């Protein structure tokens, strides 16, 4: 079965989308590659794509992220060139998540103890609120 995946690089990664594309072009795999602004889109047989993904991840294990995509690359139903411009709906989610990718990359690469965070304030449980009301009215 043909599958499509996004390979997205963290903004702080030293790997460029063109590096990933060249790596795939230079490999023996039969995969379609399309460069995009945030990474590359790859399309091919599932088993081949799984191998390619492993090879690409090895370029920067903490800085490269993979996401499934439903439509094949260049599909006229999603390609903005055929739709008269504008980003496709899924782009906004990727764009937003890209902003926090550097933090996730650093967290993946970090070793040692995880810092303890101050506990966030939680809303008052309804049971406790009920008790307070009863105490106030008695």
């Amino acid at each position, binding site marked *: 079965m043909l*599958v499509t995946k996004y390979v997205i690089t963290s903004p702080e990664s030293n790997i460029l989308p063109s590096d990933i594309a060249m790596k795939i072009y230079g490999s023996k795999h039969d995969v379609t590659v399309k460069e995009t602004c945030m990474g590359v889109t790859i399309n091919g047989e599932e088993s081949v794509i799984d191998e390619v993904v492993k090879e690409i991840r090895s370029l920067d294990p903490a800085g490269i*992220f993979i996401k499934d*995509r*439903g439509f094949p690359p260049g599909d006229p139903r999603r390609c903005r060139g055929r739709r008269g411009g504008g980003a496709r709906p*899924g782009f906004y989610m*990727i764009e937003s*998540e890209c902003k*926090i990718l550097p933090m996730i990359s650093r967290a993946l690469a970090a070793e040692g103890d995880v*810092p303890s965070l101050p506990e966030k304030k939680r809303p008052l449980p309804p049971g406790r609120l009920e008790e307070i009301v009863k105490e106030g009215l008695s």
Partner: protein
Amino acid sequence: MAKVIVYPPTSMILSDLVSRMGHKALVVPEAVRNLVTESKIQSPPLNMTPEEPKKGLRYAAVDVPSGVRGRMSLIGPIIEESEAAIIVEDPGWLTGCSGCSRTNELVRLLIRTKGIPVLDLSYPTNDDEARVFVQKIRSFLEGLN
């Protein structure tokens, strides 16, 4: 290897973390792929057939907006298939498949009432939170093995 549903169901970060830790992330694009790449397309662009609204009706009543039922026809079967879930609080940027607030409420409800292990998180806003975020996901997924 467990099948883990992630919320938002289109999240790149969550699906990547689940996959890189050796589990299968259940995501909407996979369900979309089955519809759009079907060789015998009956109803372009998404190949919605009369079967899809029927699937949606299993999760939402007929008087519920069609957008909810349509989305549930994709997300509902994924929820049924899931063995664990990671839910990240609504970040305010959901679009497309996950751009309907009522569907998102229903999805979260169905996941919670299914009785599978659920990890609740918020998107990190600084490095310390990001490390805790990744660590919690790692521990949760290791616990599924």
